[in-house]
């Protein structure tokens, strides 16, 4: 029998393998794969998991493998979000969404619009309402920054709307405050210290709280220190106690005031601004990314029949597997438990049907590093207690795994030594504190591997320290390269290559320093998931190009374009063009743009530049090219124009570097996708304007087979391993990197439905807030786990680097942790010592020592990533190959004439022509008679077939009748009537050389061994146009003649144009 399982599985213990094995175990119990839901952390992980499962399955059960593979798309191995999306699709109709539900691509745009419109509405239409007043009240206190600040706060709230929508502002227990007040009142010290001050509780609705706060301000020196801490007086416990009480009181009052202010803003945000946004989304009947989980949760809690509906659509779940469980948020966990609730409660239909569902959670609380995305490491404990309380003991198994198959012994021993001293939480500590469990080495290689701490000593600005650190890293890489410190699959030592090495950074802040150092020592590297796509010069230039082409009045963009390598005008030229003083604004006074074609307004750089055309042939060339491209905008895809420019203007020659090439390709694809989705050129500009401040990662360079050091953040190294790891920047402080508004905002998720939102712009008050304080500690815990994740990425060698400042005040940093844990000291000769002596492979050295060891190294770097050694062959000429046959449809009306008719007589003449032709054909075939009744009936049914609107019908009918009359009195009549040896709408095919002509001839009559060809022209013309028209139709008629002469084997053919409106037959041959 399968049990539910919770597996704590530390780094390197083969988590993925365990999950895959569990999956296969389920399959082998004949559980249909559709019943198994597997949740992974990323889409990529889902794909990898699937791959792993297939791989295992192929080894174990080929038959099942084949069956399953075909259905691989229906395997439910997915992220929680994509699971939610598919679930919502299923319920779309029930909850009023589009069934072809998609996640909104650009919610920000809708948000911005909603903010604007809401502000406008309140400001202009709601004067005197409470919202109007509240909005004003929220703006005024911050003076001239009032609205910008508010807008920023709204934006941060919007960013976090998934939590915010469940959020509440904490309110204080009035009773507690009351008792505090009475305690103070009765306290003997009160009358002593503040004799005249009326200590009071606020009214129950807190309406007078602000006054209390103001009053308190005046006496706060009596119980607070300068730094707003409670004064202390240990010698006099009574006084000391009073300080504490007063401080409590004061702090609560401040918090309440602050919460009160915030709650006004919060309500306004929820009700109006976010409300407006949600309304718009509702109108579109779509969802945004943040809705997925929340809506799913709501469906699962509120829709009474959800499980039946899933069952009937065959989309229900019996077994749930969760990977990287530590990164699951409370809300996600709530969704998972909802799915399992029915059977966990023991009452569900499933048990009755004899199905025994299970749940399988695997992860490592020490690797929970997504606090900022609401992942809490205590989720593990929560899950344990939840499941233990609901499952029988023989239904649940809790496994604490300690095996490590990844790293060599030094790395494991080092981790086991250091982390217990860092992750110090005992069992009474709050659940969010991390506990460490020892590893056991399972890797079958006696070599201890390397762990080395390398420190330089210096002080100064962080940027400089990083420079030093980077230098050190580069040196160490040179030291180890080509040395046999890494092991292949058979565990044989082999020389270390650049590609074995990963440099892990906490964040990208100082990335450039490390890049520069590597560059300096000629160490090839690649940045994995580099940020700053829009800040790359090649992209900035292309954006300017798009902007300029779409709106040539944009001066700055033109400057960038001209200065860029694409046109390479020098700064001097540009300055001179720009200072071109002789250009007047108009040719003559009276001219306006509308009367004079060649006088542009010379107020833009573009017009000034054009004015300069005379001065240089080179300018002339640039101008004519640009003018040409501008004129193509709107007709030709932008992406084609851009590529042409890159081609012609030597763009590729300049941007040849792999990263640049892929960036440009990514950019072109973005433009292409926008165009394919129906964006016009200005909308493309808008898109970039809106997005260029967003972070967008650079395009991925294919690292396959490239011998390069990888630079990446620890977060992006999650789930990966490398033979050699550099954990750099040990000394970096744990600063709060969140910016203003988002740092002021604290979202505290206690459970899926209990979310507290606090906002405190005053940094002093934030320090006093226990909530903010606790969050800070949580962040500190997270830094520990990040350290752990980084260290455990290493297989064979681990280098930890940083800059040691023996003089600096010991602020908390990873280096500090190490110093304390290992008792690191600076000894004579700038050498370092520590208390580790029992870990083979471990060492600690200073930069000086490092430098000594590598003094004699001269690294020969082969440039094997660059242009290949063998000279490539050039094959530029285009392919020319004639098709076997050209197919030419000989159409009735020439495009040119058709569009003339359309323009002169209106859209419906073209269709009218078709209808008349059809009528003539039917008469000739004897299907209808040449009577006004027959023709009218036929016309009406043709109107129906062609879907002619009623409004157009009378006019068309009139025209048909008119032509009927004209023909009646002309020679055409006899031609149309049925007769022997004649054809109507005769199809033909004519082969000539390699061309196949095909078409239909309106009327063919064979008489006296002459084939007569008639082509009807039903549109209005004047007599004078006839000869011109004949010329135009002649080639077509010639083909007809050729075709019929061959079909009927006659030598004589004649062709005629029949102008039905004029009642004339004109011979043409």
């Amino acid at each position, binding site marked *: 029998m399968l049990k539910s399982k919770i597996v704590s599985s530390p780094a390197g213990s083969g988590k993925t393998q365990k999950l895959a094995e569990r999956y296969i175990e389920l399959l082998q119990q004949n559980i249909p794969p559709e019943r198994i839901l597997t949740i992974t952390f990323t889409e990529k992980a889902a794909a990898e998991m699937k791959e792993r499962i297939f791989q295992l399955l192929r080894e174990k059960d080929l038959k099942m493998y084949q069956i399953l593979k075909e259905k691989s*798309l229906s395997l439910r191995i997915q992220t929680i979000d994509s699971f939610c999306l598919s679930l919502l699709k299923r319920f779309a109709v029930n909850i009023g969404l589009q069934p072809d539900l998609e996640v909104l691509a650009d919610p920000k745009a809708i948000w911005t619009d909603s903010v604007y419109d809401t502000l406008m509405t309140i400001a202009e239409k709601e004067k005197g309402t409470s919202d109007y007043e509240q909005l004003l009240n929220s703006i005024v206190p911050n*003076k001239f920054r009032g609205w910008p600040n508010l807008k920023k706060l709204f934006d941060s709230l919007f960013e976090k709307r998934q939590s915010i929508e469940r959020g509440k502002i904490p309110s204080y227990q009035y009773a507690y405050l009351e008792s505090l007040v009475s305690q103070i009142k009765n306290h003997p010290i009160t009358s002593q210290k503040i004799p005249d001050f009326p200590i009071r509780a606020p009214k129950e609705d807190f309406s007078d709280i602000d006054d209390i706060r103001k009053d308190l301000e005046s006496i706060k020196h009596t119980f607070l220190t300068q730094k707003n801490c409670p004064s202390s007086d240990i010698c006099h416990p009574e006084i000391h106690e009073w300080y504490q009480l007063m401080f409590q009181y004061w702090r609560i009052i401040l918090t309440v005031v602050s919460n009160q202010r915030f709650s006004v803003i919060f309500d306004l945000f929820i009700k109006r601004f976010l409300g407006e946004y949600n309304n718009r989304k509702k109108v579109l009947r779509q969802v945004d990314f943040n809705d997925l989980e929340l809506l799913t949760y709501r469906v699962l809690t509120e829709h009474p029949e959800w499980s039946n509906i899933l069952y009937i659509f065959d989309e229900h779940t019996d077994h749930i597997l969760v990977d990287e469980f530590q990164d699951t948020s409370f809300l996600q966990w709530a969704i998972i438990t909802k799915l399992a609730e029915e059977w966990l409660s023991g009452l569900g239909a499933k048990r009755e049907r004899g199905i025994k569902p299970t749940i399988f959670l695997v992860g490592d609380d020490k690797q929970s590093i997504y606090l900022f995305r609401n992942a809490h490491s205590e989720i593990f404990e929560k899950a344990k207690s939840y499941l233990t309380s609901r499952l029988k003991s023989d239904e649940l198994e809790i496994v604490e795994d300690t095996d490590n198959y990844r790293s060599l012994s030094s790395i494991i021993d080092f981790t086991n030594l250091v982390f217990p001293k860092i992750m110090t939480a005992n069992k009474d500590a709050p659940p969010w504190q991390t506990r460490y469990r020892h590893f056991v080495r399972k890797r079958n290689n006696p070599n201890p591997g390397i762990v080395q701490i390398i420190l330089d000593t210096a002080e100064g600005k962080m940027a400089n320290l990083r420079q030093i650190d980077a230098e050190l890293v580069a040196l160490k890489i040179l030291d180890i390269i080509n040395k046999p410190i890494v092991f292949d699959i058979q565990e044989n030592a082999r020389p270390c290559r650049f590609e074995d090495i990963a440099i892990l950074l906490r964040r990208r802040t100082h990335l450039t320093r490390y890049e520069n150092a590597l560059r300096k020592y000629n160490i090839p590297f690649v940045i994995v998931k580099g940020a700053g796509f829009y800040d790359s010069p090649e992209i900035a230039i292309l954006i300017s190009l798009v902007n300029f082409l779409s709106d040539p009045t944009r001066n700055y963009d033109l400057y960038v374009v001209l200065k860029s390598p694409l046109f390479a005008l020098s*700064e*001097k030229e540009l300055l001179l063009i720009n200072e071109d003083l002789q250009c007047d*604004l*108009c040719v003559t006074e009276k001219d306006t*743009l509308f009367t004079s074609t060649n006088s542009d307004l010379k107020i833009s750089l573009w017009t000034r530049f054009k004015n300069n055309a005379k001065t240089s042939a080179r300018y002339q060339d640039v101008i004519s090219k640009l003018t040409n491209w501008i004129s193509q905008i709107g007709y030709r895809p932008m992406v084609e124009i851009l590529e042409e420019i890159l081609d012609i203007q030597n763009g590729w020659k300049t941007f040849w570097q792999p990263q640049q090439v892929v960036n440009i390709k990514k950019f072109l694809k973005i433009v292409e996708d926008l165009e394919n989705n129906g964006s016009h050129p200005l909308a493309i500009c808008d898109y970039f304007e809106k997005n260029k401040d967003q972070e967008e990662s650079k395009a991925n360079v294919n690292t396959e087979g490239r011998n390069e050091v990888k630079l990446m953040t620890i977060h992006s190294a999650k789930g990966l391993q490398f033979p050699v790891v550099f954990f750099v920047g040990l000394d970096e402080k744990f600063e709060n990197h969140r910016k203003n508004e988002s740092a002021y905002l604290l979202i505290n998720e206690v459970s899926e439905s209990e979310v507290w939102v606090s906002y405190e712009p005053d940094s002093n008050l934030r320090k006093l807030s226990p909530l903010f304080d606790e969050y800070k500690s949580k962040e500190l815990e997270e830094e520990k786990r990040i350290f752990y994740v980084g260290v455990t990425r290493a297989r064979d060698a681990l280098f930890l680097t940083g800059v040691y400042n023996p003089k600096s005040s010991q602020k908390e940093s990873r280096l500090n942790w190490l110093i304390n844990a290992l008792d690191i000291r600076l000894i004579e000769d700038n050498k370092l010592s520590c208390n580790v002596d029992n870990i083979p492979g471990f060492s600690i050295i200073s930069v000086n020592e490092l430098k000594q060891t590598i003094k004699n190294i001269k690294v020969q770097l082969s440039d094997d990533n660059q242009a290949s050694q063998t000279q490539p062959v050039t094959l530029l000429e285009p392919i020319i190959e004639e098709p076997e046959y050209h197919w030419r449809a000989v159409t009735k009306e020439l495009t040119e004439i058709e569009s003339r008719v359309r323009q002169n007589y209106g859209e419906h003449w073209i269709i009218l022509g078709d209808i008349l032709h059809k009528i003539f054909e039917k008469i000739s075939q004897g299907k209808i008679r040449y009577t006004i009744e027959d023709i009218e009936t036929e016309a009406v049914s043709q109107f129906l*077939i062609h879907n002619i609107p009623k409004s157009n019908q009378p006019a068309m009918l009139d025209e048909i009748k008119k032509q009927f009359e004209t023909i009646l009195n002309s020679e055409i009549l006899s031609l149309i009537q049925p007769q022997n040896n004649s054809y109507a709408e005769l199809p033909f095919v004519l082969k000539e050389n390699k061309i196949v002509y095909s078409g239909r001839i309106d009327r063919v009559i064979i008489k006296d061994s002459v084939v007569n060809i008639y082509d009807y022209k039903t549109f209005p013309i004047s007599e004078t146009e006839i000869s011109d028209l004949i010329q135009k139709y002649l080639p077509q008629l010639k083909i007809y003649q050729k075709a019929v002469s061959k079909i009927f084997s006659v030598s004589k053919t004649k062709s005629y144009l029949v102008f039905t409106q004029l009642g004339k037959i004109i011979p043409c041959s």
Partner: protein
Amino acid sequence: MKGTIYLAPFGKQKATEFLLTKAIESIEGNDFSSILYIGPTPRKIRDAQITFAKLVPYPSFIPPCFYTIKQFASEFFQEYSKDKRILSDFIKPLLIKKLSPDITIGYAQAIADFIREIKQYHPDTSIEELKKKILAELEAKGIFSYDEVQKQIFSAIDILTKYNDLLRKNNWVDAEDILTYTTEIIKEKVTIKTLVLDGFFYDLTRIEEKLVCELINKAEKVLALSFYDSRTPEAYALPQEFLTFLRSLNVLQEEKLPDLPDIRNDLPYYVFSSIEEEVEAIAGLIKKQFFEKKLSLNHTIVTFSRLRDYESLVRRTFTKYGIPYSIYLTKPLSKTQPVIAVIELLRSIINGYPRSSTVAVLSSPYFKRFSSATKEWIGHYSRLAGIIKDERDWKGFEKRTITAIEEDREITDCEIQTIKQIQKEINTFLALTSRFKQPHNSLTGFAQGLKQLLAQFEWCQGLETENQQVVKIKNEFYRILDNMESFELDFGKTEYSEDEFMRIFEYLLNYHQLLPEVEIKGVAVLEFLETRGLDCDHLFFGGLSEDKFPGEVKYDPVLPLWLKQRLNLPGLERHLARAKFHYFRLVNTARGETFLSYYNTDADRLLLPSPFLGNDQRNFEPFNIIFTQEQSARHQGAIERIDFTKFISPVNFSQDQEIQKVLAQKFGPTHRFSVTLLEKYPRCPHRFYLENVLELSNLEEPRYEVEAKFWGNVSHKIMERLYQRGIIPIEKLEQEIEKVVDAVLQEENLPVFWQEAFRRIFNNMIPELIKIEQRMREQGYQPLKIEQYFTADLNDIRLSARIDRIDKRSDSNQIRIIDYKTGKTSNVSAGQIESGFHLQLPLYAYIVKKNRPKLEIIDVGIYSLADNKVYWLISKDTNNTESNDLNQLIEYAVAHAQKIVNQIRQGIFDLKPLNHGDCRNCDYLPICPMKPDEENINLSQETI
């Protein structure tokens, strides 16, 4: 027996040729019109026509009829139907919405699909039977409660009933009715001599089977092709079905064509890391093999599981490689340029004329009505004028633009004329569109209004002759409008809100596909299913990742998949069977190069190979060939190791006398250097160069908020006005300030809300202001000069400054200079002045001193309105006893000013931003030679 079913094995080439030869043999002479050829796709039809022409021994002939089943039925229907209108597929959801108004258009589409499937696969099942069957199936599934789903399905069935009734009543037919109707009339009207069933349309629906059956009945001779290969039965579910159907008719004999030697089902395939690499590899291979004479384009097919994702990339790449090609792919009308312009027009109207849509319309090349000047300048001017949206903004375009220009520079008459003209056109635009704007209207109303509007805007006019495609688009577009009208004429009008109309209309435009011309030249690039029935020697099959091939079955919100299967409706199984059969047939037909591939990375996703691929995965060995100009240029660049950064070097003209001359002129002795401008230089000389020498800066998209700059102006004005008429006694100050605030706000013409906000902000400040004023009076000072413009020469530099306020002691010549600020402020330290960071205050002192030598300047200060505080340069409020020597400070500042101006005149604009942090928010960063740390790039925490 009437004829023969030819059983062809997998990989049989030229099957169509085989059939057609037999057909030609069945006819004497060159009139083949009595042959009816039925093929699977329009693309295949064209192919068969050419093949036929090739085979016929005559130079000219009367051709057979070539049709797909659908074409045949519709052609036939048009010929014989008298009084029926056709309900186009794209109108169906509208009708369904009419029958069930509360559902979304998307769900209406789902029901339309449901109706189509039922009509296709259950032409003879009555509604009652159907319901019974479904009920039985649901019960068999055995769940306790199935109310909601059952209700949903039954309501769809009810809609189906009503739908059919309504069509019948109004004499309309849908595509399925046409098939039924055609089957009926074939019985009496048709004679076919030879019927060729080029059997690639294996998955016939029941209703199609009936039609084919009737055709066979009427034909004198039948030539049919079906595939069967005993070696791979699992790939043959579909042809098997077809064969069974043919056999069941009992009129045809069978003839088996010889087997081919081998079956290819484990071909190697290639993985790429991006879509671009994949397409380039295909292009490179084609080109390489062509020149090695291993491949002919005419016998090459390039196909993708989802061509739409590849189309434009293939176009671009093949063009670059110089490979002739023809792509056969439909395109939704909504994604064509002329229609995009119309959609934007509607958005502009419906959303209240937001700037971006409105500018898109006014500058669109598809609306001839608007002059070229408007097209060119509307974007620029409307930004300048700060237009956001609304008729009101646009009506004020002229005034706002002119005011904005005048703030900056002089305006010429000609420019004014132009702006006036643009305003006129805007007015026309507003007037015409406002007539279209009606909160509720019927589709007919909207359609007619739109037609009229488009005529007035001269949509697409003048473009037809150059561009055939435009004509086609225009026709189709009007066809939709016509369809909406006739639809409402017969089924009654419904009122829609503008938003609803917009959604419906966009839906229709999206649904409606523009058919491409069938053109055959070069390599044929085809959507996978379009390869049905085609032969090739060389095959390139891309996009073979699991998510795309065979891909998911279309999601069905009405019926569960298992139920569909039980009801014999097409579901997952059929989807798989179809993909599998066509895939294996195609792969086996190609006998030359057969290249299978997919790309595996899509943003952060990893894609897995299609399950149809075997186990032979390979990595692609890059070419050592340069195929394109682009590659050649890149190669060249790599060899020359071109360093991009040399194109963005710091600006330094110190060696260039010509430029120095220009600069000397521009910034000569008569040029007024405002003190604020001078301060910009040290902050970043490079930026100074861009913004103040070249005078480049982008206009930002206007936003609805009153900017800090504006607050500053208003506050200055208020303070200026306050003392304009002399000194006000302290006790009257409050009253006076209030008065002035009101007056200034009145003048500024701010929206009421912001007036109110400002008034409150200012009113809150009054007590503090009075305190400050009082303090100054107590110190003996009173305002002497307010808002005065001074210039003063410093050697050959003319400095200028607008001094906000000078206070003088009534009893002496001592004065203090005050500058108002609304932004962030703090104390200015001597160090800041010495290092040149701060120039303003000492230079003010210098300028005033020069102008009023008799006055003794005691102090200079910043009066911060944000902090309600005056920051004095000399006499600091703090207990800091060490006081600064003003003259010394002036000396520092003057020296710096001199140095700065010299550098400007010499053209030295170094890269020395005072504060590297500024680079973070600098617009010029990407093209600035400064390569700062990434700390300077905006990153939020999420980027880690």
